[in-house]
């Protein structure tokens, strides 16, 4: 049976992978996917804590509530984000972040 720290380690590694992807990849869709990885890593931590801190002998469902909300909002976010990417692509014909530096001061 895996211990809490094992779960946290795995979750942290997944988060690190996501972070690395966000920082390193230039394709904005991949960056977006990596963001999802990071969210999921957080979810894993939440569920692990929920399971390891029982209330009245049952898992702490408040933690899973949060996971539920995160997943839902993430779905909405993905929808909006992808729509923005599509609009961006229409306008600029690229989704390569090196080419998208209009905010450069």
């Amino acid at each position: 049976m895996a211990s809490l720290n094992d779960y946290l380690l795995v979750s942290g590694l997944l988060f690190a992978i996501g972070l690395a992807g966000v920082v390193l990849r230039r394709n904005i869709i991949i960056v977006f996917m990596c963001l999802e990885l990071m969210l999921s890593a957080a979810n894993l931590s939440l569920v692990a804590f929920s399971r390891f801190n029982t209330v009245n002998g049952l898992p702490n469902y408040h933690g899973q509530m949060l996971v539920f909300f995160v997943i839902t909002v993430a779905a909405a976010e993905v929808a909006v984000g992808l729509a923005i990417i599509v609009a961006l692509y229409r306008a600029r014909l690229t989704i390569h972040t090196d080419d998208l530096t209009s905010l450069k001061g």
Partner: protein
Amino acid sequence: MNSLPWILLFLPFVVTVVCQLVLRKSALVPWVSTASAVATFVIACILLTPSDLTLFDGPNGSGIIARYITCKPIHWASIGNFYLDIGIQLDKLSTGMMVVVTGVGALVHVFSLAYMEHDDAKARYFTGLAFFMFSMTGIVLASNFIMTFIFWELVGFSSYLLIGHWYQKESAADAAKKAFLCNRVGDFGFMIGILMLWGITGTLTFAEMAVPAEVSIGTLSAVMLCIFCGAVGKSAQLPLHVWLPDAMEGPTPVSALIHAATMVAAGVYMLFRVQLSLPLVNFHELQASTVIAWTGGLTALVAALMATQQDDIKRVLAYSTLSQLGYMVMAVGFVAGEAGMFHLFTHAWFKALLFLGAGAVIHACHHEQDIWNMGGLLKKMPVTGIAFAAGCLALIAFPGTSGFFSKELILDAAHESGSPLFWVAAFVAVLTPFYMTRLFVVAFLGKHRSDSAGHAREVGPLMWVPLALLAILSIFSGYAFINQCSPALPEHAGEFHFNTVAAVSLGALVLGVLAGWVLYAGKDKDPVRIPLLRNRFYIDAFYDKRLVRYFQDTLAAIVHFFDEFLINGLLVGGLSRTAASAGNLLRRVQSGSLQGYAFALGVGVIFVIYFTVFQ
């Protein structure tokens, strides 16, 4: 009767306003303006003998203004117990001066009716004349210094308007500007003097001035000098004399009224007024008096020298005016203001006559002003010629004419003071007959030297009647009875005693006339050419080229440069550049690169973890 002085003061003002706003370009304007001038002359004559007015004894002052009346003043500006008043002080000095101002004014108005008949803008001209009459009346009647200053500025302004009457001409426009600016420079000192005197005496009203005993002679001297600055500007003394000859760009009657008879004499009038109002024991003690006398004497000399080499008939007269004003100022400097005022009185008539005569000549010769293009005018214009001759006689102080009596008194004063200025004045007395003889001989005698002079005809009565009247006054105004109108009368006015001074001045007269006759009779062009005098000692050129261009404009340019460089460039620019470069540095952070931001965010997270977990 108490309202008469107010009518005298405000009638021309009302006329000005009505002319400017209601009548505008109507043909009535000249007549309304002239009528007002004549009316003021009548009022001035009535006021001369204010029998039914109670004359108060003044608290201070000698003789002339010992008896005066003041009309209840209008509080022009009042703050608490402090008032700036528009008041009227009537005394011998002001009423006499009023007669001169309104008398010459009325005659000049009449003369102008004919002279300016064909001018397009004669409505503007006559409105300006009326405004000048108002301002000049204000100076003369002023009961306090601020009022003097107000009207002092206003005469300057009306002079500006009238000199620039033909503003389309570059020279006229420039001359108007120059006159105004020279006066302004003088007023700079004048205002300082007024302020200091106000501080010292605690009042601005002439009749109430008292000088505390503790005030040092040096301070008073400085005050007098500052006030004298105003007179230097207005009466065109050295070194601010340059505007007056240029002012001849104005219509000739204006030159007669403003730049010969009245306004330029205002400086002398004001100085004398101050001398009388300040109850000082002895003005001789003030160094300022010496400075004033020397300024006057030198002006008289320099101007007379310059007059000998001018070709323009009006310019000769202008320099002669300068020279005579120098005499008057010198007299005030010798604390013989009565003599100065007496000369002012006689000079007003004969110089107005000379200018109007010149105007008649110019009018007849179709605006020809060079005397070398005239000649033989005495035959063609006998009335004008004779009147002009009368004016010349008065100016060169021919015995028996008014100018003789008044000038003699000034020379007396100079002689009494024992100052070397007497000999300067005597030399001027040689120069005056010299250049006037030159002028008369060249312009009026001999043959005509140009077509315009050849076609000259006698002017109409509207012009020659004023000339004739003035000619009479020029000869006789020195004698008792008429000279009672003079603003101030020395003890022996109108009498003649043969003494050293008289001998010197008669000798000078003979010498000057002879020299002039011998040199110029029958000549067709000037046998003497002295570039230094012809070019007015290069003073104008010096002002224009050196002082104005190099000094002032360069200074302005330097200041401008410093403003741009120091304040705009270094202080402000430095600040803004610092801000901008800081912004530039920070701008690099805002790379616009998504990953860059994410990286920064990650670094931030690492730090947050570090500080929350590991500390």
